[in-house]
């Protein structure tokens, strides 16, 4: 049996009524593959994984896998994950979000989770559009592009999710694309093993909505565009900002040691127990 078939049998829910909700050619399957490969390599028990999602195409991911799974409200996945992690720190908490989920409606939760440095891994599938609701403008839709709510042209500047995570104080930030599946696997593995708030931004394509409205071609053609636009961190470091316009910088953006929230809170508990009154 090929390795992926074994993993499918091991990690997918057989009592879930397939088929899944995603369009043929969507990049989310590559992300899901990377997720279970990384979990399998590290050797987590299925019982210790909690997969939390918000709303949108990415929000539907947890239901298909055999972990503790939690499908929450739009943009709020990180808040639920915070509660789960602090209540039971032995659990490995992984959050799945889309671009609208993470940095539009959930933008405030995202920067604060990064600032607190709670030990949670956040995977953000960035496909530049609201896919499930039919292709509306998202905070990562590039300037000048079309969507069903910017039919004349998008006049807003877009967020750079990874840079936002770095600035907000995340301990680990990596960016990959669904074209670079192997890099994605290794970024996820690194993120899972990182103590602290870790983020992997996964550049994907929505050929059904974003691609069709902007005449970017099929899923395969859009993945080839990812290949052509991608620049490694090492190469990007030697390039000028204007040369990096329209490029996707991939690799590890940040990996630093910071005090982890739960460890700090354990110290607070000891301090509280030592104090009188209250």
């Amino acid at each position, binding site marked *: 049996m090929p390795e992926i078939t074994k993993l499918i049998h091991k990690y997918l*829910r057989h*009592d*879930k*009524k397939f088929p899944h909700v995603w369009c043929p050619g969507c990049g989310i399957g590559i992300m899901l593959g990377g997720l279970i490969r990384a979990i399998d390599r590290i050797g987590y028990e*299925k*019982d*210790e994984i*909690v997969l*939390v999602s918000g709303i949108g195409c990415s929000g539907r991911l*947890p*239901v298909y896998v*055999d*972990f*503790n*799974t*939690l*499908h*929450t*409200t739009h943009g*709020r996945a*990180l*808040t*639920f*994950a*915070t*509660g*789960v*992690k*602090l*209540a*039971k720190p*032995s*659990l490995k908490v992984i959050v799945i979000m889309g671009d609208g989920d993470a940095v539009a409606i959930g933008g*405030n*939760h995202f920067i*604060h989770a990064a600032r607190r440095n709670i030990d949670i891994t956040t995977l953000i599938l960035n496909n530049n559009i609201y896919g499930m609701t039919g292709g509306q403008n998202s905070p990562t839709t590039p300037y000048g592009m079309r969507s069903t709510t910017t039919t004349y042209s998008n006049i807003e500047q877009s967020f750079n999710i990874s840079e936002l995570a770095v600035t907000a104080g995340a301990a680990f930030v990596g960016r990959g694309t669904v074209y670079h599946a192997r890099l994605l696997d290794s970024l996820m593995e690194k993120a899972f093993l990182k103590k602290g708030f870790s983020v992997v931004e996964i550049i994907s394509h929505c050929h059904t909505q974003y691609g069709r409205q902007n005449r970017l071609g099929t899923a395969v053609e859009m993945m080839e565009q990812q290949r052509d636009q991608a620049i490694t961190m090492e190469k990007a470091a030697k390039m000028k900002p204007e040369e990096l316009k329209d490029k996707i910088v991939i690799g590890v953006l940040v990996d630093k040691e910071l005090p982890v929230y739960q460890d700090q*809170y354990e110290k*607070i*508990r000891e*301090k*509280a*127990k030592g104090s009188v009154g*209250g």
Partner: protein
Amino acid sequence: MLLQGNEAVAEGALRAGCRFFAGYPITPATEISEVLSVRLPKEEGTFIQMEDEIASLGAVIGASLAGVKSMTATSGPGFSLMQENLGLAIIAEVPCVIVNVMRGGPSTGLPTFPGQGDVMQARWGTHGDHPIIVLSASTVRECYDMTIHAFNLSEKFRTPVILLIDEVVGHMREKMVIDDEEKIEIFNRIKPTMPPEWYIPYEDTPSGVSPMANFGEGYRYHVTGLTHDVRGFPTSRPDEIGPFISRLHRKISSHFPEIQIGEFFQTEDAEITIVAYGCVARSAKRAVIEAREKGLKVGLLKLSTLWPFMRSAVEKVFQTSKTLIVPEMNMGQISREVKRVNRGVARVITLNKVDGTIITPMEILNRIAEVS
């Protein structure tokens, strides 16, 4: 012990076994956060101040799913922000407690003054058709007891429970005895005992409540805000949605005697009965005592459970009283319910005040004089 209502809420939560609190500062509820930020770490619990009230309730629901009794506290504006995740806690059947220390409104309104304007928001605030349990308190001791009751009901029925108090009760100080030896019933959620492969997380039972597995204890299942089948998986099949939503209502509606708490004070022969809750019930009690001294047959029905509405208690009052007075610090929220169950048996008189000051015993006495 001389305790403030808000402090008594915190003490009650600890006694009930609450070990997780997430909140956001807001007057007049902040003392609950402050006390628990000091006390919870001593008890191996966790306190976290979140970025807003949406996040606070999200964290509370997450912590409860991981097996820890959890609570948040807020006031009107924050309570509005919680309505989204409140719906998720209802549909996913996650026990938790939300305390709303009501102030004057709408909007920023009167942050440091009392109000009772959130009775209907507590009932209908979140979207979609849903059942809800809402309790209230009118003394410091009741803040303690009703917080424990709120936790017990939330664990028993796998549902969020809201405790509505008001600025007066939250900030008022009264003598209160907490006896650690006192026998207080504490209810913990029923957990599954069958092997994980037999566990059906949203299976119907005679009580309508299914056993609840905590994350990380071997029962891997799916929790979602979508309508779901008995296994927790999203469904759009009418034959699965109908029974599911009906069960959500039935698990509350078939347990009214356990949920509904009220106090009948001198109502046996009362010709006029006052129906009140929160700080207004205190003034109402004083008014009843003074009216009785004047020889008037007046009684009080104090509602400690606001929702589900205590229809049978009000109907009992109708047996003797042909006049009901409903004083409230809003334009008439509970009085609507009293009128609804009245069906022409009695006169329902309102007494509404929305200027940020309490309804005094004298104002209630004056209304009694007007109608008797």
